[in-house]
């Protein structure tokens, strides 16, 4: 009996979450923020690939193998970062 009640309440919760789009949009926002932060991290290590000379590039080399897969796409994303405001407003669906 307890189990059925729990299951019902869980379904009720999911119904309301789905109906109000709760927790799903925020997941997307969190993911976007997470990817942005990771991109910033890679920027601190490998900005010299984009033409910004870094005195620490020697030490960044040992991290290279673990970032290598994503590097090409990262470079493209960096080059796409032209308009900061346009992007930020866009995140929140505020650009008309």
């Amino acid at each position: 009996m307890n189990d059925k009640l729990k299951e019902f309440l869980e379904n009720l919760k999911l119904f309301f979450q789905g109906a109000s789009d709760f927790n799903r949009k925020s997941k997307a926002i969190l993911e976007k923020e997470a990817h942005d932060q990771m991109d910033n991290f890679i920027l601190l290590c490998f900005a010299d690939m984009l033409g910004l000379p870094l005195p620490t590039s020697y030490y960044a080399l040992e991290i290279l193998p673990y970032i290598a897969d994503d590097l090409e796409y990262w470079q493209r994303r960096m080059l796409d970062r032209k308009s900061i405001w346009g992007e930020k407003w866009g995140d929140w669906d505020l650009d008309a």
Partner: protein
Amino acid sequence: MNKIVFFGGKGGVGKTTCSSSFALSCANKGMKTLLVSTDPAHSISDIFETKIGYKIVNIRENLEALEINSEIECKNYMNRVKANLKNVVSPIIVKEIKKQIDAAAISPGTEEAALFDKMIEIIIDKSEEYDKIIFDTAPTGHTVRLMSLPELLGAWLNSLISKRKKALELMQMAQNAGKKNKDEIENDAVIKILKKRYNNMQKARNIITNNDKLSFVFVLNAEKLPIEETKKAVNILDKYKIKVDSLIVNRILPDDIKDEFWINKKELEKKYIDEIYETFKGKKIIKIPMLKHDMGANNIKELIGYFEDESRLL
């Protein structure tokens, strides 16, 4: 008794001669001594007239020596990085990355960074094995940069680690509906690498700024430019909390000069020596005479006497 002694000073003042004789004097007293040259123009093999390379060799009783070869250290580092490329999935990317790593070898600052890494490795790893480790360093600016490296690099690494942690946390929160998993974050390969380097920098920093473990000796001549450079260097090192406690004034002219030209020189020298005693009050000052002949393997023992009073070079 300070275990690690750095010999610094302007080019040409006689650093290598002093550090080599000092190393020999320590070895003669029964201390297991390691003499390390960091100067790319390695001169200690010239002085001892024996081949010294990037691997530690024994050159006298109780005395071993090493000439750091930054090119080889750099290659070793790059090979270690390349070995980790087995984590990468695509062979095309592996090829690209290898090209990038090789290109980094000729980038400015790379050889110096490799040299510093080796110096730090010696400071951390070898201090248990030897009673005394003596570094014959390259001219001043280079040495000062080395001393500030652990602090600067430490700050950069710290900020990298926290940025990476934050990004990973956000990723976790997005995927696990707000929950974080600390263990997973600590096991991230990149964070492990950054932390390892950070810990090494901290160990090195603790040793370098500990006045009981590390001494700095500056070699200079009784001339205007070496004095000025020494003043500047002492101030900069002071900012990094590294005390220069001894100075060696090298190439003092002999007293029994008859020639007018040299008598003038001797008077000038006296003026500079007074200035040295005045400017560097509180530091131990050792005077070493200019020798009649070149320093070489057979007469390097001549200078040992000046370091005999061990308390002078603590």
